[in-house]
């Protein structure tokens, strides 16, 4: 059923009784050409592109809970591609470009909003780091620019631009095409798209085992039965180690709690997305009027989806200093998501030593913005059983070779 203002009007006459299900609730079949574990954004995007680009429609996406209920529904919805390293630029730029057309492609409004994103420069060191990134991005063809304090103030009128601030605003790195999208909409859009092409999305189906025959993956055990398949893709952000261990594969990953919070809704005060790396916080205002605030991760392994007040406090304190009006606003809700942190803080999109077992995880704090690109190259990797060129640098073998993709070098963090 196509969505449009006309279909809305038609349905309104009938008190909206004619709407069909956004996706099916199919029964699990005993075998599939491929099984994707995890119906988050990345897993659903992978299924969508496997069906769309590679004609693989006899596939299942199995999900422990409800689709889009993990980190896809818990992030701060920021989209940007202004990374430093070539490998990162490639995948985030692909994602960014795909994002721009998703609403029309899905016939489902994901509310992609390129409202502009700026990363503040608050120390000379940070300024130099972003200058380097700016040059690298320009060479890569991204439209980004360094802007001065005056321009920052114009874009973010509520910013503390005092000279005597502890961390004065020296400028910012601005990506006008960066922005946000509606996180649930992305998951639901991919789900609807994949479902329409015949992909079975099986919710409330927890994976309890991965079956191997020697070096070959042969099936998945779930709470709803065993599935025979020769291809299994693990896309379970936050739980990658746990699932991979079922196939006897260890991962260079630790899972930690990343926190976020929102304020009560207020009338618009900030139109762009602002990231302040020196003081560790980022903020944007949602269409409902809430300030959406992202902060740091706890320093210890945690699967509780509840973080420490300390890391939240650190972020909120930084934002009160950076945006003084926040002081008299109120924090309405906080939450945590479990993210996979790899050794170099860059993701893993990889084949494994087990034939037919593929893994996509370790996105750390960058998962949401990469969903379309990640799904696209991972689908290609699975369909062709070889790494997509954009996925290749993110392979597991980089940890043996020492060929890390270290983005923290760009954020001005001295090692």
């Amino acid at each position, binding site marked *: 059923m196509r969505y449009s203002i006309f279909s809305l009007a038609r349905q309104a006459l009938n*008190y909206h*009784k004619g709407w069909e299900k956004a996706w099916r609730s199919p029964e699990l079949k005993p075998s599939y050409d491929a099984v994707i574990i995890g119906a988050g954004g990345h897993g659903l995007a992978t299924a969508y592109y496997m069906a769309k680009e590679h004609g693989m429609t006899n596939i299942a996406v199995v999900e422990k809970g*409800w689709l889009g209920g993990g980190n896809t529904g818990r992030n701060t919805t920021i989209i940007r591609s202004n990374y430093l390293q070539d490998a990162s630029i490639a995948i985030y730029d692909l994602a960014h470009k795909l994002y721009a057309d998703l609403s029309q492609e899905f016939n489902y*409004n994901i509310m992609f909003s390129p409202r502009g994103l700026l990363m503040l420069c608050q*120390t000379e060191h940070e300024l130099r780091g972003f200058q380097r990134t700016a040059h690298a991005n320009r060479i890569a063809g991204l439209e980004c620019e360094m802007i001065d304090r005056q321009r920052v103030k114009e874009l973010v009128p509520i910013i503390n631009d005092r000279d005597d601030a502890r961390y004065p605003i020296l400028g910012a790195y601005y990506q006008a095409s960066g922005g946000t999208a509606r996180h649930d*909409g992305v998951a639901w859009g991919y789900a609807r798209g994949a479902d329409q092409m015949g992909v079975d999305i099986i919710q409330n189906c927890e994976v309890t085992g991965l079956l191997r025959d020697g070096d070959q993956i042969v099936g998945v055990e779930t709470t709803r039965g065993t599935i025979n398949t020769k291809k299994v893709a693990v896309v379970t952000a936050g739980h990658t180690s746990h699932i991979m261990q079922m196939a006897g594969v260890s991962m260079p990953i630790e899972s930690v709690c990343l926190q976020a919070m929102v304020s009560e809704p207020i009338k618009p005060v900030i139109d762009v997305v602002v990231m302040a790396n020196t003081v560790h916080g980022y903020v944007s205002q949602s*269409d409902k009027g809430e300030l959406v605030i992202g902060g740091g991760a706890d320093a210890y392994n945690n699967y509780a989806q509840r973080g420490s007040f300390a890391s939240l406090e650190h972020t909120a304190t*930084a934002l009160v200093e950076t945006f*003084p009006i926040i002081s008299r606003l109120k924090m309405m809700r906080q939450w945590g998501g479990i993210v996979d942190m790899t050794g170099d803080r860059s993701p893993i999109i990889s084949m494994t030593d087990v034939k037919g077992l593929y893994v996509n995880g370790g996105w750390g704090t960058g998962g949401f913005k990469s969903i379309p690109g990640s799904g696209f190259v991972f689908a290609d990797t699975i369909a062709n059983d070889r790494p997509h060129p954009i996925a290749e640098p993110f392979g597991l073998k980089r940890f043996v070779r020492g060929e890390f993709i270290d983005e923290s070098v760009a954020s001005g963090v001295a*090692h």
Partner: protein
Amino acid sequence: MTGKPYRLPDDSGAGRLLDRSKPLSFTFDGKKMTGYAGDTLASAVMANGRRVMGRSFKYHRPRGLITMGSEEPNALVGVGTGSRREPNLRATQVELFDGMTSVSQNRWPSLDFDVGIINNHMSRLFPSGFYYKTFMWPKTFWHKVYEPVIRNAAGLGVAPDGVDPDSYEQVHVHCDVLVVGGGVAGLAAAQAAAANGKRVMICDETPRLGGIADISNELIDGKSQLDWVREQAASLTAADNVHVMTRATVIGHYHHNYLMIFERLTDHNPALAAAGAPRHRLWKVRAGKVILASGASERTMTFANNDRPGVMLSSAARTLVERYGVAPGLMGLIFANNDDAYITALSLKRSGVGIARIVDVRENPQSEIITAAQDAGIETMFGHAVAGVETSAGGKQIDAVKIAPYVKGRGRVVNEITVPADFIAVSGGWNPVAHLWCHNGGKLQWDDTLACFKPKSHDDDIAIVGSANGTMDLAGCLKEGYAAGEKAGGKARLKKPRVVVRKQAPVEPMWFSPATGKYNEGNKHFIDLQNDVTAADLELAQREGYESVEHTKRYTTLGMATDQGKNSNVPGMGIIAEATGKAVPEVGTTTFRPPYTPFSFGAIAGTQRGKLFHVIRRTAVYDWHTSQTSVMEPVGDWRRPYCYPQGGESQQDAINREILNVRNNVGILDASTLGKIEIKGPDAGEFLNRMYTNMFAGLKTGKCRYGLMMNEMGFLMDDGVTAKLADDHYLMHTTSGGADRIAAWLEEWLQTEWYDLKVYVTPVTEQWSQFAIAGPNARKVLEKLGSDIDLSHEALPFMAMATGDIAGFPVRLFRISFSGELSFEVATPANYGQDLWDKILEAGKEFGIAPYGTEALHVLRAEKGFIVVGDETDGTVTPHDVGMSWAVSKKKPDYIGKRSLEQAFLTEPGRKQLVGLATTDPNEVLPDGAPAVESGKLTGHVTSSYWSPTLKRSIAMALVKNGSERMGEKISFPLADKVIEAEIVDPVFYDKEGARQNV
């Protein structure tokens, strides 16, 4: 009934909290109004005849208050002006003070006439999730056209202007037992817990203890509950092991019984804030045990247009009358499915408020209180439900209530009657306030009898008592309170009160009252009042497959409003259950995240704002620096002078002057921030061998050596000069930013890996002021100051050190140089630092001494091709990459990072290597980070780039692919507006032989 005064007369007996001798004046939406001391803003506005206090989020429908406290979803207001304005306060919670300025929200141009109401008239086009289905064409219109309109219409209150003038603070407290909630159960728990001397805290969100004791009718020990509460409150506040707090909300329960209490100190009396008292205080409490006595909150019931001003909870109506002497209206109707509403009926009747009748969905309920109501002459109507309301004045005024026989599950209404009334007090049962129970993982379970979720299990040392635990009778609340208190504080010898147990008729859940006409069509049955989520929206979500309760919530925004589902979660799940034919627990369970109620970010920041936001570390000469220059540079947490412009000089001119002065005369630099670590023990040499890439074993006492440190991944992490003080004793210098990190790094290796090594490490950075005196005249300056150290090149050659005395100051003197000039670094205890600095400047005057800042330092070192860790390196760079293979020992069997240096990628040919760059145009200074591009690919970047006044040309260093083998090649750096060409050269630009420093 807009415009009619609702204040009950003094002789009605109503209005317990009012002090009618103290009138207060205030404004609401610019209109001057009067209330009394003791009023809330909500009660005062109502007393002035105004029932509409806000507009809803999506449809802009007029709304009045519905609750009595912090869970209020409708009556949200802004209080204060300018930088003291606070949006989104619950009028039901705001204590009135004289001169208060308040405004309603989310309306334009006014509360009574809001153009946003157009949304209500077009609401059939805006079902839940409509925005996912439209606004997609043309492609750019979402961001450029639709979204800006939506954004401007959304949001609630208006943020304050500028910087908050008030202060905030935090306090860390430990206690044995924290009791949350000062109602009857909480007071009993606190009494018992404190009986044996345990440290007990009890706090309540409201300005007073007692919970709803004052609006309850049962007796404790034959006394009114209020009297009993007064006695308990007095005895607890008098006890020296109990801390009693009011206006204090526990907003979160975190790991290991860590709780946050949000205390409001001055909001009720701004004079206190003006006098300097902190506005809010966040208490960070580590409690041994926690007892939750957070009470229960009443549920509304769902009927058509159940959001109209005048529809309120039964408890809110009772509170208005009993505490504030305000009638909810002139003639009311009570709509209930449980006994509690009968207390309201009696209370209202007693105070002279008209009651048309009680409509009870239960078929034939029997209990003492029902009989009492009937005996008082109140008409009751069982087995019926309110089906809707008749309104006027654009929905702002209720004229009559539609009542129909109620049969569960039946879609159509028959035999409807209409009763005139202007308000409805609704009671749909009570939900335990178990939010804090859930914050750290406590589980809930569905209770069929009470029709609510109540606490089940928890991993922490936390108990929950009273109505928060689903125990809805007074005797049970007291019993659980005392029991939990004793469990936490030990057996208590307390006289426990007697309560006559009164039997109640059971509650009968009713999630949905059908309206006249076709089932649910065209009528709005509101579930989430603030977000305008209707029963139809929830059904639509089911129809479209957003079946999981989490999907439903996200699709419809149910429970996402500022009350965070306090009013809507359970009724919403009830509706979903009915719509899908499931039992409520099958639909899903509900959970709650912090905070319990929204609280100020100011309280989270506490004292840490402005100059206390983050520390600035100061060297002993800091005040002198800031008296000379305002150009300070953050280096880690330190602030260091960047340069010292004089008499209108530009920064660049100052830097050039400082550099040339070092090259030609002598300069002085405050290098106190450099990390200094003493390392001593029989294995100290071996330890250094393992920490540094290069060899330290052969170093002689009194000599210094430059060392490189890698992390275990083989990447550079720090560098510095280490001096050997004695056979088993070294002094290590680190980078300024690395001092603490490296000290911890050394300790970590000694404690966790190489604990067999006998080595002690003590950081001494803070002990010393250290100054670099650099330039051809450096020795002359020191000689003039006078020293017992032989300063000659022969006695103290380059890379030697000595201990002694200069100008009467105890010093350590190092012949080390980061500028390439003859250079001494002199260290003296920090408290003498300023005086030594002054004396050096004085003595150096005749030799042309001048201070130089960090930028001159950087240019001086770049001219010499010295790297700065963090500039030339970025965490992916090995010693080989920066041309320092000479400092990487091949002999030592092991040191940190050695093995990783052999990983494939780190040994690959063609890595980026450090080179110097000489731009073809010597006047062209490459920007930092400029990209080297070859055949369209990025093959390197500039790491440092400066104008060298010494060489009168630009110099730069860069990491370039295979750079060290490409000396003499030209390479281009395309910028946004031009291309800069440069020749790859040796990174040492000046005095390659090192002759100048070795004199």
